[in-house]
């Protein structure tokens, strides 16, 4: 096995090779790292457009995520309460979940206009579906033995829900809340692609229109970085919230 130092060394080596190859081989359509770097300097530092764009995209993502998650939690918990309702609505839930969410972007532009609202709705809808579905499944997967144990120990119906069903579902719910953050961002950016006046997605479309591939590639790079950073932050939150769960590396001492 390699040690951590060697591992980092190899990873950096791979990055250098890839970037060098890109620099040498990248034609007009791929741009190259030097041009992209120059564009990023201009975009972020000289013109400062980056800050308005990312502010606009983040605002749409955050507002949409907040309300989408709230609604997803609420309806997921609600529907999971009733055996009958769950049974009746199941095919519809599955059908709605099956819609390619990106396909709704043009519809949302038509309904909510080209300003902030359509991006918020797009991010919100993506979040809603993911959180709703995960919450619903998590609550439905409640462990019968644990529920019975709690009942014998004197838990009322409400206590059973709050102290057993909900924590039992928390890995599902957390997963829903977690995967929907990058998805909400993608939702907002896609809506910006179609029609908008600001935002990271808008800038990418503008650059594509002018065949300014350095700008387009810079946009891809920025989105990639944001998602990577978000994911690692979310991993930390999740580790803390679900600290009671055994790690995969733990060997069970039976």
């Amino acid at each position: 096995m390699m040690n951590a130092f060697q591992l980092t060394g190899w990873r950096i080596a791979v990055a250098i090779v890839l970037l060098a190859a890109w620099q040498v081989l990248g034609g007009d359509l791929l741009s190259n790292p030097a041009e992209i770097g120059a564009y990023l300097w201009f975009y972020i530092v000289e013109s400062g457009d980056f800050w308005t764009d990312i502010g606009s995209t983040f605002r749409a993502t955050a507002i949409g995520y907040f309300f989408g998650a709230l609604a997803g939690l609420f309806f997921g918990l609600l529907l999971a309460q009733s055996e009958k309702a769950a049974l009746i609505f199941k095919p519809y839930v599955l059908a709605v979940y099956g819609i390619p969410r990106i396909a709704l972007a043009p519809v949302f532009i038509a309904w909510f206009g080209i300003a902030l609202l359509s991006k918020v709705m797009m991010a919100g809808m993506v979040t809603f579906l993911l959180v709703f579905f995960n919450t619903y499944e998590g609550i439905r997967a409640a462990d019968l033995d644990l529920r019975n144990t709690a009942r014998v120990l004197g838990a009322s119906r409400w206590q059973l829900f709050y102290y057993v069903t909900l924590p039992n579902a928390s890995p599902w719910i957390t997963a829903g809340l977690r995967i929907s953050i990058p998805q909400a961002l993608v939702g907002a950016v896609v809506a910006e692609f179609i029609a908008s006046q600001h935002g990271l997605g808008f800038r990418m479309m503008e650059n594509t229109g002018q065949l300014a591939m350095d700008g387009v590639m810079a946009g891809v790079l920025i989105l990639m970085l944001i998602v990577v950073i978000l994911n690692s932050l979310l991993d930390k939150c999740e580790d803390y919230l679900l600290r009671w769960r055994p790690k995969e590396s733990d060997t069970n001492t039976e």
Partner: protein
Amino acid sequence: MALSDVNLDIDEGEFVTMVGPSGCGKSTALNVIVGLLEASSGELLFRGKPSVGINREIGYVTQSDNLFPWRTVIENVTFGLEMQGMGSRAERRDKAMALLERVGLAGFENHYRHELSGGMRQRVNIVRTLACDPKVILLDEPFGPLDAQTRLQLQDLLLELWQERAGTTVIFITHELTEAVALADRVVVMSARPGRISEVVPVDIPRPRDIFTIQSDPRFRSVYDRIWVHLGEEMKETAL
């Protein structure tokens, strides 16, 4: 129908074990007693009164530990008290700590389930039930998945805990005849399809008993052999 004709009177403070082949409805009987299941016919009397629904004076220790994995050891032990609103938070924790110390788990109170061995989990499970001071404790093969040595240690611990609590009744299900005889005042032998009581055998070995040497006691042997012959006939019948 899982059970039929199960008539049994159990006295306060008695330690009763139930043995029988799998499928004889031992667990069903416990579920009815605690109130998780309703009997389709017949009557369940608790201290002379009909018992309906979950009976909070009964504790239930299941074979799988059923610890809440999102709660620490001490939070598991205080669960019942918390649900029933008994005592302040500090009082509940003191009581739980005392019990954990009693069963040798001091220092593990802030561990989660996945950090404990099987024997430790089952000790927490037992203590969680004891925390509510039940009048009757039901145990459904509580030491089933444990290794022989841990099993003996926990049997010994269980007897001590029971003797410290005068008047507490225990109904203990097992498929291990040695365990059934060693622990019990009376052994209830059940047979399968439908589950029914085929024999009730008293065990006249004085207490306190030494669980580690009891098997060499001639009285143990005679009760053991008597039930074993009975179970053997039963098995031949069902095998055909």
